């Protein structure tokens, strides 16, 4: 059997792939968090719950309406986005003038409520969601077996992250977003409806979480705790990448997924904590994060 550093290549690439899959979710989720934090100054603790909601909406669309995966991929982010817009308008918008801490507490409370509602209705055992027929099966590569659906998750995540980055960096809309992130007061004084921008940005950020939820549904079982499980790691990713940095969150998301995968191969005992160890180290050396701007 071929080995690298005494580890079978099969295991190495298998774990790297798993790391890449996890990284795909870290990247989309931390991207949404970064956009929301950058513009709204809200640390959106409800992000995990809305990711879970995306997976549940996919499951509901299939179960109650017979609408399959591809429908869900479009509709679930829309539903989650509209739900987010309502949350922002009704609750979060009232906190902009207060300390960060209030936004964090509010969204944390919202996360608990949303999770509680789903747990009450659907229990905690998890609901199955099948991989769409088009993406079942896999490719036998020389060094490993690559399931088609997992490849798709990586491609879809990369595409969405890249598209989001392009919109933010290269379009007029993105220029408004960047400018309003820097100096909302001045952008408003130019006649731009900044509050509307905040609402739509929150909606878009959580729609990304909803999208990630749909991608996750066939891999992890659809269950009310799936968001709570991942969001702590995602927050660590955001801190490492630098709060509010768009590209930083994407690169860090994928990078840390890979690091996690490698740790599983070489020192499995540390795989659950490696990201947090890195977070501590980064905070010690670069408190603003790897890609963060020092305020």
């Amino acid at each position, binding site marked *: 059997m071929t080995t690298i550093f005494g580890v079978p290549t099969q295991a190495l690439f298998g774990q790297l792939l798993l790391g890449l899959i996890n990284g795909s979710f870290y990247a989309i989720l931390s991207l949404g968090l970064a956009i929301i934090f950058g513009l709204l100054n809200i640390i959106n603790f409800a992000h995990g719950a809305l990711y879970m909601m995306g997976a549940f909406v996919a499951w509901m669309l299939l179960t109650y309406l017979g609408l399959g995966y591809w429908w869900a991929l479009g509709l679930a982010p829309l539903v989650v986005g509209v739900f987010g817009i309502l949350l922002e308008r009704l609750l979060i918008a009232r906190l902009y003038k207060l300390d960060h801490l209030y936004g964090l507490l509010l969204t944390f409370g919202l996360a608990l409520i949303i999770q509680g509602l789903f747990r009450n209705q659907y229990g905690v055992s998890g609901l199955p969601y099948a991989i769409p027929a088009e993406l079942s099966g896999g490719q036998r590569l020389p060094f490993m077996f690559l399931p088609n659906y997992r490849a798709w998750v990586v491609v879809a995540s990369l595409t969405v992250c890249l598209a989001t980055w392009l919109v933010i960096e290269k379009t*007029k809309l993105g*220029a*408004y977003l*960047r*400018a309003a*992130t*820097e*100096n909302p*007061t*001045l*952008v*408003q*004084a*130019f*006649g*731009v*409806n*900044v509050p509307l921008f905040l609402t739509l940005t929150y909606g878009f950020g959580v729609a990304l979480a909803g999208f990630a939820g749909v991608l996750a549904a066939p891999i992890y079982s659809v269950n009310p705790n799936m968001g709570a499980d991942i969001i702590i790691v995602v927050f660590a990713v955001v801190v490492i990448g630098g709060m509010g940095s768009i590209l930083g969150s994407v690169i860090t998301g994928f990078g840390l997924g890979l690091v996690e995968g490698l740790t599983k191969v070489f020192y499995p005992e540390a795989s659950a904590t490696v990201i947090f160890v890195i977070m501590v180290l980064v905070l010690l050396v670069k408190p603003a994060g790897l890609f963060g701007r020092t305020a």
Partner: protein
Amino acid sequence: MNPPTAPLLALRGLQGWYGESHVLHGIDLDVRRGEVVTLLGRNGAGKTTTLRAIIGILAKRSGSITYDGVETIGMPSRSIARLGLGYVPEERGIFASLTVQENLMLPPKVKPGGMSVAEIHALFPNLKERAGSQGTKLSGGEQQMLAIGRILRTGAKLILLDEPTEGLAPVIVQQIGRTILKLKADGYTIVLVEQNFRFAQTLADRHYVVEQGRVVDMIPNADLDANIDKLHTYLGV
């Protein structure tokens, strides 16, 4: 539509606060269409705060501000800007995450008849040469040109200019002076906050002297030299 004799901008009993701190104690002033009016006064007198109140970014304000007959005291700044006001802040407000061109194109058009990008580039050729640079990589003078240029695109007819010459080299100050005169000739109305009254004298029709949040005097430009001693006392120079 107001009769042409009525002021384009009128402030009556304008009060303003930064948090708990009461900064403006009743500002009264008029700006007629096509005029260049300066606000003179010492640091901390309330000149910048007055501009911030006019454009609506001073959160707590009371009294009356009318623009072209429309009361704006309760309006959000985005709606005030849409009436045709353009604001050039003291700190210039160039966005670091935007290129020069993106900065120039950022403020939306609020009224028809704004300058084209080509006209702005003709006025400030540096902005064309450095269109792709990061906004804050420009020199101080270029940033000021960008801050003024991007407002000229919007069609705003009243321009609030907060200390446009602060910290700039004399040659740049002259260029900005020429620009203000050209804008005046084109029919723009300008409210200029300025520390340097010698510079203001070359541009303005009238000068309001602001002291401790009140207008304490109004000096027509023609009378400036006759009042020079008084002005020195006001400004403490």
